[in-house]
């Protein structure tokens, strides 16, 4: 099984994620592939995503930690930096990745992105336009989507 050659780094990170989870974040490896994680992030308080439970998937490529983990939202979310397939626009997942960053730091950054959407660097053009033209209305839609798709029920 591929898991037998798992680098020490991944084992250590996994252990720590399970024993000391970050507030509002849970990540557990899949049973048949230790490089694949099921992730849940709680919508941050005072954001339009408050009260929502967002499912994500995270995959550690062969080159990890020299290459960034691949992460995407599985729960539908209305956010200017997340597209309809759940793909995330975040610099540390691309050229700003550093091997000293960890799964934990990546997930904390995604949680922070929910608190601070950045419509100037959009992945979803329509949502970004909405955000810039009428932020209050866009926030309402985001709240609505959170109720509809991320209620955890």
């Amino acid at each position: 099984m591929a898991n037998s050659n798992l680098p020490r780094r991944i084992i250590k990170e996994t252990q720590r994620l399970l024993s000391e989870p970050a507030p509002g974040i849970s990540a557990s490896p899949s049973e048949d592939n230790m490089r694949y994680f099921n992730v849940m992030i709680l919508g941050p308080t005072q954001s339009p995503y408050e009260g929502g439970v967002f499912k994500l998937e995270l995959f550690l490529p062969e080159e990890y930690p020299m290459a960034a983990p691949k992460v995407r939202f599985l729960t539908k979310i209305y956010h200017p930096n997340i597209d309809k397939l759940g793909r995330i626009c975040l610099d540390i997942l691309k050229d700003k990745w550093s091997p000293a960053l960890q799964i934990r730091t990546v997930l904390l950054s995604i949680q922070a992105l929910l608190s601070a959407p950045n419509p100037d660097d959009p992945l979803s053009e329509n949502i970004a336009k909405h955000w810039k033209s009428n932020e209050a209305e866009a926030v309402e839609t985001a709240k609505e989507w959170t109720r509809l798709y991320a209620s955890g029920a």
Partner: protein
Amino acid sequence: MAEVSGRWPVRQRKVVILVNQIKSLQGKFVFCNSRHVPRNDIKFAFKLAKDAIQSQINRTAESSRIKDLNETCVICMEDTDVSQIFSAKVCLHRYCFSCMKQHVEVKLREAQIPKCPHEGCKTELDIDSCENFLTPKLLELMSQRIKEAATPVTERVYCPNPRCSFLMSKTEVLEYSKKEQIDVDRLGARKCVKCNSLFCVDCRVPWHRNMSCANYKRLHPNPSLEDAKLKVLASRNMWRQCRKCNLMIELAQGCYHMTCRCGYEFCYNCEAEWKNKKATCSCPLWAEANIWYDGNREFDEEEEEEDEGVEFYNSDSDY
């Protein structure tokens, strides 16, 4: 003070944590005595602490030669002999040679100047500090990257001898040519700093003997055979050439918004410039086919704003 020395019991949670931290630190010292200092002396105390840390690091490095001392690299989490641990200048963050080599190589291949890997750390690595773990080839690539980054695009001259292609700055090659007694005033004659072959800095071709630049251009109206081949190859593969620095770029995946190494931003689809992070054309932001979704893997997210360009080489023939 009374709390730290343990004479008073502590109740507030934050203070308890702080006191515990201090106690665990105290335990690491051979001798430790806490003392009140006036506000003005805090700087002095900080300096003492810094000197102590520095001497500790130096001592670790020295004693490693005598007995084996291991340190855990925070990247690979493996225990590594301290003689195989890199310590960045200035910021003093430490990682093992093996991880540093891989990190620097990845960044160099992405055409970035490698930095200390620590989160948010801005320390740029220099050649000297990387000598211990990089191969000679990677060291050469690194010095080339550093030189390129330090030379403004308009100052860059690449030797037109295809077997050389050495990067020089206009000033550098001018000074060298003068020293080598080349008549630099009359024509664009220059001598390559590395391979010593003569070339014309205006036409960017090997030296045209007994001929003015105007005459050379008249007799060679078409680009060289190699350049022509490159142009054909580029158009066949739908590569784009940066209008500012002539770098050849291929869109491997991602959106049409290109940010060239030189900073020029443009639309890959129609080549119109992007200004102030906005397109000046009405092309779509991306083609769905370029937003790669690899079904064989669990998934693959590869979109985003910035440069997805793969550089080939600087054809460099037009400026």
